């Protein structure tokens, strides 16, 4: 198939960027989207052009590195699919495809389609973990947890931290990302002692990083390659509001 690409090219963080047009001829419909870009890059290098920089690692939908806004839709047209799992058969011969980086103040462009998503790491570092040392893996049934609780926690734990929720959100909010971790840990017994302060610290960090607030458009849920539900945002809001009603000193004393 033959395609016309419009790709965001930007030489560095402070360099001006622009959309550049490329013809991508003889693309196999069985290629993944990233393989298509590999082919385009190989041809660019043969002609002495610099290849298009984009993030990728596992290419099997589990690492969250790939991060492309494809025709204005995060990770492209297929629901529940990361860019690396999107195949060219989802497009038609002759299509024009616009490829842009995630756009958010908290995600500065590093080069071309690569953005710095360290802001998400800092949200996790603010409290998205259980601080107690738990030793080696415990016996499977040592702590009994109801099946539906485990399932809901596992659904939230599927977050791969790609940032599509931010990219797709009209508010540029990282609520789905933050809420997924708060829900994952907040549902499990190991996460209970730090539950409220975790919600408070992670939400505070999310605000400090410059993400927008959540008005529940629902776009994040649709963009999420793991289809994480906005129910997690309801849980985050509940935990955060409860934390705000709880005296700060008592909450900090729990674990500091």
């Amino acid at each position, binding site marked *: 198939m033959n395609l016309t690409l419009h790709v965001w090219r930007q030489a560095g963080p402070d360099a001006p960027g622009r959309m550049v047009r490329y013809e991508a001829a003889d693309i196999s419909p069985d290629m993944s989207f990233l393989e298509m870009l590999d082919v385009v890059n190989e041809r660019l290098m043969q002609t002495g052009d610099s290849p298009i920089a984009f993030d990728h690692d596992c290419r099997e939908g589990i690492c969250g590195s790939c991060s492309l806004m494809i025709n204005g839709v995060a990770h492209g047209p297929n629901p529940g699919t990361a860019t690396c799992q999107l195949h060219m058969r989802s497009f038609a011969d002759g299509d024009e495809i616009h490829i842009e980086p995630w756009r958010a103040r908290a995600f500065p462009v590093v080069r071309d389609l690569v953005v710095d998503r360290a802001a998400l790491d800092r949200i996790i570092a603010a409290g998205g973990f259980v601080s107690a040392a738990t030793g080696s893996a415990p016996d499977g049934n040592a702590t009994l947890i109801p099946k539906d609780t485990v399932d*809901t926690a596992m659904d939230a734990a599927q977050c791969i931290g790609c940032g599509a929720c931010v990219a797709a959100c009209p508010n540029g909010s990282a609520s789905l990302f933050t809420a997924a971790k708060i829900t994952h840990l907040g549902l499990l017994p190991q996460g209970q002692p730090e539950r409220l302060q975790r919600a408070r610290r992670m939400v505070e960090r999310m605000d400090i990083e410059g993400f927008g607030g959540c008005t529940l458009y629902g776009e994040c*849920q649709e963009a999420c390659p793991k289809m994480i539900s906005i129910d997690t945002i309801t849980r985050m809001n509940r935990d955060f509001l409860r934390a705000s009603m709880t005296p700060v000193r008592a909450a900090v004393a729990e674990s500091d």
Partner: protein
Amino acid sequence: MNRALALWHSSIGKHAVMAVTGVIMVLYLITHVVANLLIFQGPSGINAYSRFLHGTGGALWIARLVLLVAVVLHIMAAVQLTNRRRAARPVGYAAGRQPQVSTLASRTIRWGGALILVFLIYHILHFTLGTVHASFVEGDPYHNVATGFRNPLVVVFYEIAMAAVGLHLYHGIWSSGRTLGVSTPSPRPLRRQLALALGVLVWLGFAVIPLAVFAGMVPA
């Protein structure tokens, strides 16, 4: 006090303020729309209700004060959150961000809110103070309504504003439950029956009156 301030500074706290003040205004709107329908009973019904409200003395002013505070806080939070939203994405998408599932109601929540504010000011000048009313009679709401919709432009403005109120409630009521963390988990979290029912009922209840008056169904 520090905790209240910290809450107000957070984006979730501001949304919670919007949700709580929104719920207060929705509760008021429900009493407003039910009382409005008294107009179809002739002058006795709605004028008696008006006398009852004014007879409560302080209570009327307390209600007005609560509503005023709710409106002011709702707008303050909305403006600040809108500023955060602008700052959160200084460079937009060249191809445009294509909405996938968001409703028209959610996408018009800000401009709709601004329109409702303009309407609210006009509405108070129209029926509370009478400033922009051609033949305002203090204490006779039946007469004021029956003569207040002769100008088709006024009717059209009211109808547009009421559609905006309906849309605003459709997204606002649903999202308030989620903002405050009281909604129950759902396999289809974007579905919103309660908000749909309330939004439609409030919209129709308000929208019918200017049309009925204009059509001559409320004799002066």
